[in-house]
């Protein structure tokens, strides 16, 4: 948390300081209130006081109350501004930090976790700061000040107050100790209820096919029962809190009076009246002390959770982005599109084994190079090295004859048109998705967009949409089908006119026919563009200028389809699993 506070600006620190001053004013005024109260009491009790005296004391009291509320409003204003401004900045810092992460860092955290860290965790911190500036600062000031005021007025009363506070603290600590560990368990059980339900939902057909409804229900029951018994325990325990708190407050007032009666009786003539008004005032102060302690404990219960959030945010901020800009800027040697791997090996940090080992190949301008191999053979890893989603462990990846790590990231990526396996669309319109990003060439015209969609075989379906290219795309592209999404994401790559296309298994969502037409269109319309294709289907790769066959991270074959069918065992095996011998021969 302290580390996070370093992100506060000097202005905010100053505001916090001013706000603290106002907290003090607020506390002072709130504690003055009972003084005026006792002034009224004494005035009334004193023979011969006039009504005007009472009005004066009453007026003072109201003024005091008004001043105190004014001070709290000012504090509230500062607290809200500081908390909101701070969290705004923090949110942005985290956001742009995450944007600079490479896949390595993202996988370390996982995307859902990063999302929670940028949203919920920051909200938690914002809440604590806002609360903290008001309550956390106020409660101790109040408690100390009130205790000081009280302590002079009779130690019996102070003792009684201390006793009640001690009881309260013990109670709250006891309850927290009992329930906080169970909260963790509740979280786990809630997750498991979620899991069992999700399982049932995703496997609806299987569950029914196996007549396993009862089986699922029993499983759910088990988790449900445990969750309920945990909930029962915690809520029954927390139910103690409220009655006990009011017992303490009421009990304290009662004891102050009871003790007061004895004190007054035992006091000398002259002190009796003073003691009496002291008693009334004391019961008020004592209440303030108790309330501050209650507030403090509430905050202390809140703090651990926020600390966890703060730690999680810090973890993000402290993780250095492993992929950073290269130092040199190269004058655009446009139209090259040459990719070369020189003895490239890659392994994940801390991993024992390499994902790919000693890969070398070269793709000349306009060539199509395809990668094929079983899952985990490292084909996606190879092409992820080109846009620097990861950096090589050994060897060099060269684009246009220059190591990718020497480029500024922006310049490198302007050369690339990357299409992922799982297509991603953003909220917006068809056009904004196709024209997405910064190609270094300024904004794309509608003509460019249409041409890209045409080549990507997307124009047919886009033109049937009522709003055409302005048709809205909802978050995650849920309002278009998988194949349409994939075609739009290919159009997006085409639209930026890159030197190199990188298709990371982008064709599997397309049916054979579209797959084929698309490859034909790219070949004829964008003949100067280099294509790197990762694929599963033999049909997709068989026309490539070069096919690179991978197994367990090693390059085990390289050449054209016919050559590989002749002398690459792995390739033949893959091919045979998809096509019958006869078809391959005929094909």
């Amino acid at each position, binding site marked *: 948390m302290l580390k996070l506070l370093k992100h506060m600006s000097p202005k905010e620190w100053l505001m916090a300081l001013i706000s603290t001053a106002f907290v003090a004013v607020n506390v002072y005024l709130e504690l003055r209130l009972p003084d005026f109260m006792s002034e009224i009491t004494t005035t009334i009790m004193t023979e011969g006081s006039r009504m005007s005296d009472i009005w004066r004391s009453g007026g003072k009291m109201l003024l005091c109350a008004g001043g105190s509320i004014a001070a709290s409003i000012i504090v509230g204003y500062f607290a809200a501004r500081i908390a909101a401004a701070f969290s705004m900045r923090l949110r942005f810092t985290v956001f742009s930090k995450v944007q600079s992460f490479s896949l390595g860092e993202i996988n370390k955290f996982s995307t859902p976790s990063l999302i929670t860290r940028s949203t919920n965790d920051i909200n938690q911190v914002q809440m604590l700061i806002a609360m903290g500036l008001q309550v956390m600062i106020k409660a101790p000031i109040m408690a100390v000040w009130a205790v000081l005021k009280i302590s002079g007025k009779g130690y019996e009363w102070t003792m009684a107050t201390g006793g009640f506070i001690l009881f309260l603290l013990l109670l709250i600590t006891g309850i927290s100790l009992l329930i906080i560990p169970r909260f963790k368990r509740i979280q786990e059980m809630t997750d498991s209820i979620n899991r*069992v339900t999700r399982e049932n939902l995703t496997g609806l057909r299987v569950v029914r096919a196996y007549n396993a409804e009862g089986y699922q229900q029993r499983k759910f029951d088990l988790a449900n029962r445990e969750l309920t018994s945990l909930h029962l325990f915690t809520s029954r325990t927390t139910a103690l809190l409220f009655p006990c708190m*009011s017992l303490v407050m009421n009990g304290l007032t009662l004891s102050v*009076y009871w003790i007061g009666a004895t004190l007054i009786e035992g006091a000398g003539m002259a002190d*009796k009246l003073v003691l009496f008004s002291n*008693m009334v005032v004391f019961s008020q102060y004592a209440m303030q002390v108790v309330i501050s302690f209650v507030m403090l404990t509430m905050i202390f219960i809140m703090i651990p959770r926020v600390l966890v959030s703060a730690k999680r945010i810090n973890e993000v901020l402290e993780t250095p982005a492993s992929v950073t800009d290269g130092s040199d800027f190269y004058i655009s040697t446009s139209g090259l599109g040459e990719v070369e791997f020189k003895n490239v090996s890659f392994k994940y940090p801390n991993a024992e084994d390499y994902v790919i080992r000693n890969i070398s190949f070269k793709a000349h301008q306009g060539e199509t190079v395809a990668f094929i191999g079983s899952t985990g053979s490292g084909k996606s890893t190879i092409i992820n090295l080109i846009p620097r989603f990861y950096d090589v462990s050994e060897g060099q990846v060269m684009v246009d004859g220059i190591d990718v790590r020497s480029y500024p990231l922006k310049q490198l990526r302007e050369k690339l048109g990357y299409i992922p396996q799982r297509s991603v669309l953003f909220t917006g319109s068809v056009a904004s998705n196709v024209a997405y990003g910064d190609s270094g060439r300024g904004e794309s015209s509608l003509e460019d967009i249409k041409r890209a969609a045409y080549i990507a075989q997307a124009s047919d379906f886009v033109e049937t949409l009522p709003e055409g290219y302005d048709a809205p795309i909802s978050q995650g592209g849920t309002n278009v089908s998988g194949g349409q999404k994939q075609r739009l994401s290919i159009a997006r790559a085409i639209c930026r006119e890159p030197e190199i296309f990188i298709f990371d298994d982008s064709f599997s969502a397309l049916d054979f026919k579209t797959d084929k037409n698309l490859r034909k269109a790219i070949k004829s319309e964008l003949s100067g563009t280099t294509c790197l294709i990762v694929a599963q289907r033999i049909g997709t790769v068989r026309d490539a200028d070069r096919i690179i066959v991978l197994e367990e991270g090693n390059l085990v074959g390289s050449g054209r389809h016919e050559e590989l069918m002749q002398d690459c065992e792995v390739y033949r095996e893959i091919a045979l699993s998809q096509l019958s011998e006869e078809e391959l021969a005929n094909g």
Partner: protein
Amino acid sequence: MDNKREHRSGHGPRSKRPIEKPKNFKAVLKRFLHFSRPYLPAIIAALLLSAVGAVMTIIGPDKLRQIAKLIEEGVTASLKCGGQIGIDLAAVGKVCLNLAFLYGFGALCSYAQGFIMATVTQRLSFTMRDMISGKINRLPLKYFDKVSYGDVLSRVTNDVDTIGQTLNMSIGQLTSAFALFFGSLIMMLYTNVILTLVAVLSTILSFALMAIIMARSQKYFVRQQKQLGSINGHIEEIYSGLNIVRAYNGEEQSEKVFSEINSKLFESAWKSQFISGIMMPLMGFVGNFGYAAVCIAGAMLVMDGRMGFDVIIAFMIYIRLFTQPLGQLAQSLTGLQSTAAAAERVFEFLDEEELSPEEQGAVTSHKSQGRVEFRDVCFGYTPEKQVIRNFSALATTGQKIAIVGPTGSGKTTIVNLLMRFYEPDSGEILIHGIPSRKMTRSCVRDQFCMVLQDAWLFEGSIRENIIYSMEGITDEQVESACRAVGLHHYIRTLPNGYDTILGDNAGVSAGQRQLITIARAIIENAPLLILDEATSSVDTRTELQIQRSMEKLTEGRTSFIIAHRLSTIKSADLILVMRDGEIIERGNHSELLREGGFYAELYNSQFDEPSA
């Protein structure tokens, strides 16, 4: 203030919802009362207890007043007579003891109330979760076409949790607040009418002020919720598509959008934070204002000799008791509103139409030899669009029916009808002579083994996953099934063998997951088979293994195969070609090729000459 909306599930950034209002409060309330009928006596007892507890709190100030009066009398008396007569300590002690007892009893009552309500709400939540979970399996699959899983999930957890938390708080609070409010009002009236008027007036005044502030500020809360939602949406979108953002140099663009939303959020966030921050002090001010008003008015009355000072002391507490429940009332009413909104969603789900009941005298067990006949079957997912028209076909024992077509063409429709996941609109499907409609669903499903494309496994051991819900399966059977699919050796190499828990990343590949589901189907050993061949993203060797296992599975069984492999398609006895959800062609491979229709086109597009 935000605790009850705390998000719980680890990653659900949309958990912060604004206060939701039910569509029909009355109907939900009625339904809810009906639902909680078994607990009504307990609830009523709790309500009574909370009222009693509140009454104890109210009597308190009156007793305090008595103490103050005794002391005051003592002091005045001793002032007058020079110390001969003092405070009647015995009387004070008696009243104090009395009061201590009252407070203790009140606390006991209010704890008993809390205990009962906690128990009732948790039991209610249990029942609700239980009912929802059971309901999932009684709903027709049709229902899940229109509702997302996330929606159902959030009803099981979020909505029921909301009910559990708010109901517990609100009901107890509501009664005690009511009791406190009216009780203190009555006690005030009983003690002194004029002061009561002063107290009520000053309270109304300051609450009116607060109401105005609240009403004006509501829009900031709504705006904040909206902007939080949109910033979370943006974050989610960018993070999950970060590859694209980075590859397309879209960082600046998204930072711009982010900053825009972020600064809008800042505006509404600080305003709503500010307002919720000053609510507490404002409440305090209401108290103080009333307090001062009571003191001044009280002092005047005392000066006039119309009442004693003790009344002021009593009123000082009454005024707090009187203003406090107003805030609580507002709080518990909003609480009840979220309870109702959540309950409405739960009931809505529970009220969904269930599967049609089984026909009377439906066959419950039937041993077929694998003969399946479609007779004039018509079916559409929606009444407007019929996708299967007058379809008739016969599959005899051991035959293979292949269903082919591009992605998304509705190949699972036939499966849905066979398994009675959906019912045909007209016509019938006969399994060995008996219309499937005339069998119980579980009887129909007993006839089939099924292997679907996405290998559905659950968190549990491999053994549990293979046996699943089947009973009386021996370890030998499990092992022989695994040997049959070639998994036995692999499983033996795992640290816990067959007891290895399958989690999210248990190092079991997609292909191996598929093999496990095949083993499951082998154990079920039913005469009919439904198979989805697609094995995308599986490595070559496992692929071959799967293929072999699937072939083994089809031996001697009548099989319906969603086919992707030419070898399967070519050897099929009947090929059904699907497109856009409809069966458009049928026949065997050579017939279809001869026809030169869609099938021929599809076939040729994959395997024609390499393009130039």
